[in-house]
């Protein structure tokens, strides 16, 4: 098991958002977390990446308790977190943003190799290398963010709402890139407001509600489950097909 979350309780200030989360994430593939607003999806990612410390429970990565390790130490173990908000540095060039992705790499030759690999996977990084990240469109920025995750060759990528605020074409590109990242042997833990699209790109789905995991199942089965569709996926399958054809 790559990631094991055991009875994790965490939150901000006095209130707990996560109220005893148990979740196992196997190595490889995409696991998509779905659930209503306030269910604790983003909070769970913050707890895994070390931005937030759980008040109870444990987060184990490859069997090792991450304990009080901060984001830097977890990054070195291979856990990369792409937060929901735009996370690029807007007044820095695309190239400098990529270099920041490899901030922990001291070996310059390895850093250059990784940049070349990221640029090959996301050609936008070469085309706009000298442009300020803030001048890129939302979809382009997301592509650069995903490219930046490759710099440390992570084992686990935590992606928080990667399609938020994007037009349909950019959304499709993002989900293709998510599959591409997973195809290269990485494990993706994905939080996606657009639950149907997220599940469609995922192998496994987990339903979070009220700070606990309600259900874990293959993503395809969750998509076909009428009860899950009614409670968490908004539109039914027929409406979704219509929505998807509009997108296309």
């Amino acid at each position, binding site marked *: 098991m790559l990631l094991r979350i055991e009875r994790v309780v965490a939150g901000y200030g006095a209130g707990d958002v996560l109220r005893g989360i148990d979740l196992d994430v196997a190595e490889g593939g995409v696991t998509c977390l779905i659930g209503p607003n306030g269910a604790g999806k983003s909070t769970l990612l913050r707890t895994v*990446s070390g*931005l937030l410390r759980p008040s109870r429970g444990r987060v184990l990565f490859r069997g090792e308790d991450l304990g009080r390790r901060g*984001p*830097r130490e977890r*990054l*070195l173990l291979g856990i*990369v*977190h792409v*937060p929901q908000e735009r*996370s*690029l*540095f*807007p*007044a*820095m060039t695309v190239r*400098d943003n990529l*270099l*920041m*992705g490899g*901030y*922990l790499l001291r070996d310059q030759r390895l850093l250059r190799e990784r940049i070349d690999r990221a640029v090959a996977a996301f050609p936008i990084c070469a085309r706009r290398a000298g442009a300020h990240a803030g001048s890129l469109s939302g979809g382009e920025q997301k592509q650069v963010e995903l490219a*930046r995750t490759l710099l440390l060759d992570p084992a686990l990528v935590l992606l928080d709402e990667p399609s938020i605020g994007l037009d349909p074409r950019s959304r499709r590109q993002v989900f293709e890139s998510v599959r591409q990242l997973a195809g290269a042997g990485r494990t993706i833990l994905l939080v996606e407001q657009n639950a149907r699209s997220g599940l469609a790109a995922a192998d496994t789905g987990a339903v979070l509600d009220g700070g606990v995991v309600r259900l874990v199942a293959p993503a395809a089965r969750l998509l076909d489950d009428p009860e899950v569709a009614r409670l968490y996926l908004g539109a039914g399958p027929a409406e979704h097909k219509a929505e998807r054809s509009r997108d296309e």
Partner: protein
Amino acid sequence: MHALVQGLILGVLTGGVYALMASGQTLVFGIMKVVNLAQGALVVLGAYLSYQLFVSYGIDPFLAIPVTAVVMFALGVGVHLAVLRPLRREDRAELSLLVTFAVALLIEGVIGVVWNTTRRSINTSYANDSWTVAGYQITVVRFAAFALSAAALGLLILLLHRTRFGRAVRATVQNPESARLLGVRAERVAALGFGLGAATAAAAGSVYGLLYPFNAGSHYDLISLLLSIVVLGGLGSIGGAIAGAMIISVSSAVVASTISPSWAPMTFFVLLLAVLLVRPQGLFGRPA
């Protein structure tokens, strides 16, 4: 016309020095969102260190800068670790005003004890030398001060744009949480950034001591000037600090030389108000 051009020359040369003084202030704000009210006192302390090296060992204030900059860098890191780091992150912006003002008063007190309150000045052999270029007077000290300030600012900009530490500083300024998620130790960057701000104050202090007489209380005038510059240019922007310094210095010098010196201080406050009415975030600042 002659008075106008002479005013412009004086304004540009002095503006370079102001820009160096303000660069530390804006750097610290950019990294930590801390308005450092001790920056003026650090400049004055830099002037005193330079003065002491000059009177005790005959070291030229320009040559003293590598020594004073290292000492002040260490002092800046120490101040950050001792009084700013212990503040809770969410209270830091507000409490830092009080804390850094207390640091300014402490520095003023120490200077008063060590050097007493008599005004000092650094009188080098070239203090009164000047060149005449096409009929315009350029004092050697002011030109050298400008050249040194430009060189120091150039080094600072190179450091910020061409080094791993500089990238980490700029990343922390623009998106602290994202920088943390990429492995940047925000507190270490903040401590080194505060040290760097103090080191620029050391360089600016040497230059300031050459240009003006100073005493322990000189920092009150300096801090109001520095705050005006960084607010005009946009808090957190080095380019903004340079532009703000030039605008304030040139406008004051031109008004002083063409109308009356008594109007000069008011000129830059009027300019400051006019800019803030149109761009509340300053010339180069980003909207909140």
